[in-house]
C-alpha cells in the first residue's frame, strides 16, 4: 500500500464514520430516551435536536420495568424470551444435526427419498400455515405455553439441510474408520461428526437465536397471559394501546437490544459469517 493509498483510506474511514453515525442515530435516540424520566418530555424532545440529548439522565425507567411487582414485569418477559431462545436453539441443534447426519450417512434406502422431500418442505412459508397451526394448537390445548412457542421451530428443513451440507465436508473415511473399529452409528455422530462441526453449530445457534429472539407473529397469536409472553410481544403491545409510556417503552427496548448487542460484539465475525452463509445455503 502506498503512502497515498493509506491517506485515502484514512479519509474514507472518517467519512464512513460520519455517515455511520447518522445511520445508527436511531439507536442513540433509543438509549438517550430511555434515560429520560417523563413520557411527555420524550414526545416534546423528539421534534428537535434535543431528541439526542438528555440533561439529567436517570435509570428510573429501568428500575420501574424490572420491578417484579410492577404490572408489566419486563424482567419476566426477558426471562421468558431467554427460555424460549435457549430451548429452541438447543433443540434445533440436536434434532436437526441428528437428522442431517442420518440423511447423509444412513444406510437405509428411505433417506434417499426423505432428503428431497424435506428440502422441498422449505418452500412452505411459515406465515402461510400459522393461522391453521393456531387452530390446530387450540385443538391440542397448547395455547399459552412455552411448548407451543418452541416445538414448531426446532425441526426446520433449512437447518437440517445446513447440517447435511456442513457434514458432507467431513471426509467419509474418518467415519468409516471408526465404524470398522466397532463404533456404532450413533457414536460416530456424537464423537466425530458433531464435535467437528462447531462452526455449523455456532451458525445455527446464531441464526436460530436471532430468529427466536425477534419472533413476533407466532407468539402474538399463541400467548395470552404474561407468564409465557416474550419480550417482543410485550414491547409491541406496550406501544400500541392508548396512552404510550415512551419512557418505559424505550427502556424495555434497550433491555431487549442489550443481549443481542453483547453477543454481537463478542462473536462479531461469527455473526457476519453465519448470516452470509444463511443467504447462500438457505
Amino acid at each position, binding site marked *: *500500500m502506498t503512502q497515498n493509498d493509506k491517506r485515502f*483510506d484514512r479519509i474514507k*474511514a472518517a467519512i464512513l*464514520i460520519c455517515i*455511520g453515525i447518522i*445511520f*445508527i442515530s*436511531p*439507536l442513540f*435516540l*433509543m438509549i438517550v430516551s430511555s434515560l429520560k424520566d417523563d413520557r411527555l418530555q420524550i414526545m416534546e424532545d*423528539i*421534534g*428537535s435536536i434535543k431528541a439526542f440529548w438528555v440533561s439529567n439522565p436517570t435509570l428510573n425507567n429501568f428500575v420501574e420495568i424490572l420491578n417484579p411487582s410492577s404490572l408489566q414485569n419486563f424482567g419476566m418477559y426477558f426471562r421468558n424470551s431467554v427460555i424460549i431462545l435457549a430451548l429452541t436453539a438447543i433443540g434445533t441443534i440436536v*434434532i436437526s444435526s*441428528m*437428522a442431517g447426519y*442420518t*440423511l447423509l450417512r*444412513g*444406510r*437405509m434406502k428411505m433417506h434417499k427419498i426423505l432428503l428431497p422431500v424435506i428440502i422441498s*418442505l422449505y*418452500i412452505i*412459508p411459515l*406465515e*402461510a*400455515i*400459522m*393461522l*391453521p*397451526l*393456531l*387452530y*390446530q394448537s*387450540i385443538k391440542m390445548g397448547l395455547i399459552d405455553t412455552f411448548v407451543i412457542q418452541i*416445538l*414448531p421451530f426446532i*425441526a426446520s428443513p433449512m437447518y437440517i439441510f445446513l447440517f447435511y451440507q456442513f457434514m458432507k465436508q467431513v471426509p467419509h473415511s474418518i467415519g468409516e474408520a471408526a465404524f470398522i473399529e466397532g463404533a*456404532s*452409528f450413533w457414536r460416530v455422530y456424537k464423537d466425530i461428526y458433531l464435535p467437528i462441526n462447531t462452526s455449523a453449530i455456532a451458525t445455527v445457534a446464531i441464526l436460530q437465536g*436471532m430468529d427466536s429472539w*425477534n419472533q*413476533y*407473529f407466532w407468539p*402474538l397469536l399463541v400467548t395470552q397471559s404474561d407468564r409465557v409472553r416474550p419480550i*417482543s410481544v410485550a414491547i*409491541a403491545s406496550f*406501544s400500541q394501546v392508548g396512552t404510550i409510556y415512551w419512557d418505559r*417503552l424505550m427502556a424495555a*427496548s434497550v433491555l431487549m*437490544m442489550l443481549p*443481542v448487542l453483547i453477543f*454481537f*460484539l463478542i462473536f*462479531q465475525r461469527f455473526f*457476519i459469517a453465519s448470516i*452470509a452463509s444463511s*443467504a*447462500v445455503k438457505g
Partner: protein
Amino acid sequence: MTTIRKQKIQEVLMVSPALILLIIFLVVPFFVSISLSFTNQRLVQGPVAAKYIAFRNYAQILGDRHFWQAFYNVGRFTLFILPLQCGLALLFASMLNKQQVLKGFLRSMYFLPFITPMVIVTVIWKTMYQYPKGIFNYVLGIISGGMIQPVEWLGTAATAMPAIVILSAWQAYGFQMIIYLGGLKGIPDELYEASNIDGANKIQQFFHITWPGLRETNILILIITTIQALKLFTQVNILTQGGPNGSTNTLVHYIYDAGFVGQKIGYSSAASVLLFVIVVMIFLVQRRVVEGTPVRKTRRKS
C-alpha cells in the same frame, strides 16, 4: 442383534424426532389449511357446526378489493425497497470493500441496524415519524427553511407505505451489504487493474466490471427481497394495522385479520393457500429466470 439391525434402529431413532415435528407442525397444518379452506370453520368451534362450502371462500377472497389491495401493496413494497435497500447496501459494500483502516469496527457499525429486532426498530421509528413534531418533520423543516409543512408520515395513504419501506430498508440493508461484500470479493482484481491501464474511470469500471460481476448476487438478493416482502407483517401490524385506507395492508396481515381478528379460520386458510400458491409461482418464475439465462462472463474491456 446384528450390527446392521442395530444401526437401522439408531437411524430411525435419530431421524424420527425431526420427521415427527415436521409432520405435526408443517405438513399437517398445510393439509389442514387446505381442508379448512373449503369450510366456514370458525377459529373456536361454537354451537353451530362448520359446513362444507366448496369454493365460496376463494370466490369471496378473489372478489374482495382488500385482498387485491394487499397483493398490490406487496408488489409496491418490493418495487420501492429494492432500489433503496440494494443501493444503500451496494454503496456501503463498495466503500467498505477495500477499506483497511478500522475495517472491523466500520463493518460492525454498518451492520448494527440488521441485528436490531424489528419490534424495536418500529418503536424507535414510530417516534421519529411523529406528527407534527418528529425528527423527520424537524429535518424537513430545517432543509426547506420552514417551506414544507409537516408531513403525517404514517397517517396518510400516500406516505405510509414509503415510511414503512424506509424503516424496513434501514433495518435490512446490512444483510444485503454482507452479501454484496462477498460478491465484490469474487470479482478478480486483475479486471480492475487491466481497465485502469486502459484508462477507464470509476464509473465506467462500475458499469462494465462491478455490476456485471454481481449478477448472481443480484439474483440472490432479488429472491430474498421478494420473499421478505411477501412475509411483511411485524412493521405493519405494530405501526398501521394495514391502514390508512388499506394502503399498508399486506397478504400476511390480511390472513391475520381474517383468521385471528375476525376468527374465520376457514376463510383465512383459503387466503393462506393462495399465499402459498403465489410463493410457489414466484419461486418457479425465478428458477426459470436463473436457469434460463446463462451467467454472462465479465468481459475485459477492449
